[in-house]
């Protein structure tokens, strides 16, 4: 009996190994088989981005072939923050699209939890696999430094995207949108929704999230301007990107500040939780911030029953795509990551490397994209 059980167990392990094999190939192969399903909507809906980036369009046609030299067949790895997050999925989709365009090979790695430890292990594995470039969305600003330095010493080009790692651990950072651009967009939205005067509150993720804090600091700096003298930021609440806690925080804001006019949430979980609470309560408080279109489609609209008139976010597909081309430019030597280096990122056009706020260098994707009732219907299908 015991033997039978142990044989069964071993068999099931083999079965699992085979199944997992299928699993990994499908994650890397997904983009090749998925396009039939996902590409169609993506192409349709990419139009609005191109409209806003009209100047970029001019350069794309002629210069595209140039970027292809010397990167064909090279391996490009993307290490996202964690599995299961739709936003990271879309980043990976864009990255894969870019790498496939210039004929490289893609490895996408997704740690199960959004921790630096998991990422460090995976970086070690990627170094052992001798990839040519690693693009990482850092779960910690400093903790990845030893692992990434090791990768760079092994001749691998390292860049960060979305969430930066410190300047010593990267050649360049791909920034979704300049911190100031986001701060300005959010402050303008608050100014607009409050009607130029009144109270608003911020619902953030965790109090240590570096991107959140940079945006909030930038909003604070912009609010110093006399133009915004009549709007008052009453509190920065932290929902830790957990639903239950974000709901608690939103409800507390509504109860503690009866005159509150606007909640601004620069985090997708915060946006969802606040949207749900405001809608359920039929509150007159308005919501804006950075949210995922599909999650927020339910809450964006004109009229009192919709809490969110409009919100912003960048296109994660584009960040991944830009990171793919940035990695290619690093690998073929077009750029070294120094200020004023320029390169062409496929359909997105030409980009120039600029100085980043952390004394490193970065590429900025562009201003955040606005989602409102006029375009939410098409974007909710995308991500």
């Amino acid at each position, binding site marked *: 009996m015991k033997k039978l059980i142990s044989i069964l167990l071993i068999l099931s392990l083999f079965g699992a190994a085979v199944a997992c094999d299928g699993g990994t190939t499908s994650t890397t192969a997904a983009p090749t088989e998925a396009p039939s399903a996902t590409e169609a909507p993506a192409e349709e809906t990419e139009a609005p981005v191109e409209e806003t980036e009209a100047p970029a369009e001019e350069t794309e046609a002629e210069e595209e072939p140039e970027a292809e030299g010397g990167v064909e067949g090279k391996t490009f790895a993307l290490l996202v923050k964690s599995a299961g997050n739709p936003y990271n999925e879309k980043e990976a989709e864009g990255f894969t699209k870019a790498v496939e365009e210039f004929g490289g090979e893609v490895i996408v790695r997704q740690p199960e939890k959004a921790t630096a430890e998991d990422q460090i292990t995976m970086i070690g594995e990627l170094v052992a696999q001798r990839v040519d470039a690693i693009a990482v969305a850092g779960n910690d600003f400093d903790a990845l430094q030893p692992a990434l330095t090791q990768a760079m010493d092994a001749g691998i080009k390292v860049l960060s995207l979305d969430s930066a790692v410190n300047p010593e651990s990267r050649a360049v950072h791909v920034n979704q949108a300049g911190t100031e651009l986001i701060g300005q967009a959010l402050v303008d939205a608050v100014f607009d929704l409050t009607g130029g005067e009144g109270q608003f509150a911020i619902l953030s993720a965790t109090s240590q999230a570096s991107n959140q804090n940079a945006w909030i600091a930038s909003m604070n700096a912009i609010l110093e301007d006399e133009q915004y003298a009549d709007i008052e930021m009453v509190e920065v609440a932290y929902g830790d990107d*957990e639903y239950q806690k974000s709901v608690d925080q939103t*409800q507390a804001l509504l109860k503690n500040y009866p005159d509150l006019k606007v909640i601004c949430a620069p985090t997708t979980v915060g946006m*969802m939780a606040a949207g749900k609470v405001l809608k359920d309560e039929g509150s007159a408080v308005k919501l804006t911030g950075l949210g995922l279109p599909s999650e927020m489609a*339910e809450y964006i609209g004109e009229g009192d029953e919709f809490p969110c008139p409009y919100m912003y976010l960048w296109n994660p597909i584009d960040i991944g795509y830009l990171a793919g081309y940035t990695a290619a430019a690093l690998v073929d030597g077009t750029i070294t990551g120094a200020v004023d280096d320029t390169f062409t990122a496929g359909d997105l056009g030409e980009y120039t490397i600029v100085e980043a706020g952390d004394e490193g260098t970065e590429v900025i994707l562009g201003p955040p994209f606005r989602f409102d009732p006029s375009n939410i219907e098409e974007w*909710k299908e995308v991500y």
Partner: protein
Amino acid sequence: MKKNNVLKTLASSREISLLMVMLLIVAIITWRNPIFLTLKNISDMLTNYSTTMILALGMMLVLLIGGIDISIGATIALSGMFSALIMRDNQGVPVVVAFLMSIGVGLICGLLIGLVIVKGKVPPIIATLGFMNIYRGLTYLMARNQWVPAYQIPTAYKQFATGRYLTFGVLNNMITVMLLCYILFFFFLKYTKTGRRIYATGSNVEAAQFSGIDTDRIKFFAYGTMGLLSGLVGALWVSIYASAQGDMAMGIEMDVIASCVIGGVSLSGGRGSVTGVFLGALIMAILGNALPLVGISQFWQDGLKGLIILVAIILNVLTQRSIIANNLRRRQA
């Protein structure tokens, strides 16, 4: 001497000492912000924490038999995601059916865990650690790393969490479900054979076996029930937050275990009551809801929460000790 007597009566019941702690917390919070004690806030709080409170009941059963289950967050995600995906593709699925599907998935998850622990003799913490990863991974695989946003979930289903139709307009549905679970468990543990056998199994497995209790069946039952409740919470979770994500309910097991321990459930099994768990879970809910209300710096909130939990548990242990000492003295006398 008289003072001592008061202390003695206080110390004679875990539940009463817990109640005192809770009232003290409530008093301080209300003093800092009277909004806390409004009907609306209490309703908000119970609605938002009905999930954690229901889970505490299942966790109590598992702790009573001397086990532990840290896979509940993953079970919630798997079962919630399962029914959410079905609803996404078939908008007409009735709410009850969606709930039953989620509960079914949860029950299967729990029974599998029970099977491995009982038949495989794997220590519960290791078994559930393994299943935590398996179920979470399955959730991602099943959903193909996608998520089900609000607009894809049928309106009737979302309205369950905001509606009051179960009690014809008196209580929010989430609260009703939670209270029903508590009433059910109260009578089940106190007045049924299986209920008493759970305590017997937890306090002394060998003695229980000698007296003819099928302890394996009892353990199986406990993990199955935990899974079933996780499935129920998976359904409630999708309804209240109007979205199903692969990473939902991650880490919730810690809050649930804390609720039980505050409520006086012994981690070594055999000891704990439904009333105590109710108070323990309620204290966790109060802390979650009220700390943002009283305007303490965000940076202090987590630390303060931990401190209060610790104080509640220490008080609990002290009360327990004095109860045991009292009993001993009575027996010697």
